[in-house]
């Protein structure tokens, strides 16, 4: 049986490469994973620079920071949604398991997120060296983020991209599997839970303690917490996908 022989000879290697090839499959959507994030990042940067330049010319010489660098993070929600909705049905046609698809998609997000974080760190380094492009305006170099150094800042940024990606991916999975009503219910549930936490903290008059905890933990500490949240969400997302029909 020649087919059997050639089959068993190639199979292990073939199986090993499948998850890695999912990354290539996801990157077919260069728009989603490369160009649009780059555009969002570039656009946010240009806009921020323009505003700083206007402020600078208007005589505002103090330290200027803005939320522009958040935009690409938010965009990773979209990346997560599209990685799921656009590619999952095709991944099934490629005879992939849901696990292979999921792990490969996370890896693809990680590649994109790492690239984003790298650009972010490089910008921050430039900003630190040029004192905010000579106008005291900062896009990527935010004091509290960089207190642990460029690596820590990069890690925070990377973890946030993954967090947003996983949330987007999970939401899309819930939507595709159960429909709008269930997704909306889940989101309202999460909203209620958050309001509940806020209420609890307020009633206990614990805000100072919470503030102190945040300060004590620092951005790197918070990042580690975020990693824990990522792992939890990723597990939940996988469990939802695991029995998802194509």
């Amino acid at each position, binding site marked *: 049986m020649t*087919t059997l022989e050639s*089959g068993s000879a*190639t*199979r292990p290697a*073939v*199986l090993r*490469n*499948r998850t890695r*090839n999912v990354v*290539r*499959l996801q990157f*077919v*959507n*260069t*728009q*989603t994973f490369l160009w649009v994030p780059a555009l969002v990042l570039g656009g946010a940067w240009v806009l921020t620079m323009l505003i700083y330049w206007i402020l600078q010319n208007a005589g505002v010489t103090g330290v200027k920071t803005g939320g522009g660098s958040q935009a690409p993070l938010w965009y990773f929600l979209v990346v997560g949604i*599209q990685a799921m909705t*656009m*590619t999952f*049905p*095709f991944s*099934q*046609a*490629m*005879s*992939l*398991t*849901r*696990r*292979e698809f999921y792990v490969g998609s996370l890896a693809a997000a990680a590649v994109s997120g790492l690239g984003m974080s790298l650009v972010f760190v490089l910008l921050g380094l430039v900003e630190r060296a040029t004192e905010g492009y000579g106008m005291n305006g900062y896009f990527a170099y935010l004091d509290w983020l960089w207190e642990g150094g460029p690596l820590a800042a990069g890690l925070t940024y990377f973890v946030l991209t993954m967090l947003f990606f996983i949330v987007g991916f999970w939401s899309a999975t819930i939507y595709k599997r159960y429909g709008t009503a269930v997704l909306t219910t889940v989101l309202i549930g999460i909203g209620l839970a958050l309001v509940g936490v806020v209420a609890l903290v307020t009633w206990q008059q614990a805000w100072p303690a919470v503030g102190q905890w945040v300060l004590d933990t620092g951005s790197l500490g918070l990042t580690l917490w975020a990693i824990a949240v990522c792992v939890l969400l990723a597990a939940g997302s996988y469990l939802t996908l*695991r*029995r998802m*029909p*194509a």
Partner: protein
Amino acid sequence: MDSVIEVRNLTKRYKDVLALDDVGFDIRKDTIYGFLGRNGAGKTTAMSILTAQNLPSSGQVRVFGEDPYENARVLSRMCFVRESQKYPDDATSRHALASARLFFPRWDQELADDLVEEFQLPLKRTIKKLSRGQLSAVGVIIGLASRAEITFFDEPYLGLDAVARQIFYDRLLTDYAEHPRTVVLSSHLIDEVSNLIERVLVIDGGRIIMDESTEDARALATNVVGDAATVERALHGREVIHRESLGRVASVTFLGRLDAAERDALASAGIDLAPVSLQQLIVRLTQQRTPGRDAFAAAAQEGSLR
């Protein structure tokens, strides 16, 4: 016989629909199957479960002796070409074929290139912008060139013209002859595929109602035409599956064959015997639905008449 797929007591229930109702069948190795039945009979559901794209409500599925669910070892040896396959938004035909090359271990690029040329598939166009026929061609090329040990084609020809369909049939046959494998072909164009398939699996209302070699299936029924009274007398006690008449002439299809003596008797009584094509047979068999199942369709029809 070597079975590559074994299905036992398979049931799939959607909210209020029983798509598969305690189904059991085997699929033999290196055989081309026609998987036939009406829309909504359960064909796509069955194929989705066999390829682990969907999950059964209950029952067992074994492919190459294993459960296919989340089983890369088994899945990598199968290919399921869906009628309504979705592709990534930005993907071009070239991307789709390049992806398939990554995931199907027995992929034949030369065959894929040939087929692209024969179907005149524009490689650089995004799949979103392809015509319905070109979209089908992408699926057909993936299904043929993947050379998976089990390939499912679910109505693969939508939008393909007669010439393109002939290309598909011819290529399927020649490639199958050189590289025998199991093919499960679901189709409404039964006449077109009846000579290609070695076995017929007919599903109706979520149940398998026929699992035969094509040759035996062809011999299942006989059609007689002649004077209505004579025909009725001659066929007394036979299982009639279809009856129509024009004046005093009746055309009756019944299950079973006639022996030589019966044939002679009918012939001398002036009654003509006609073979029943596979398509006719399956149309006749699947049109006899239980009233309950058809209640909805009947109600809908009544509604439109009022």
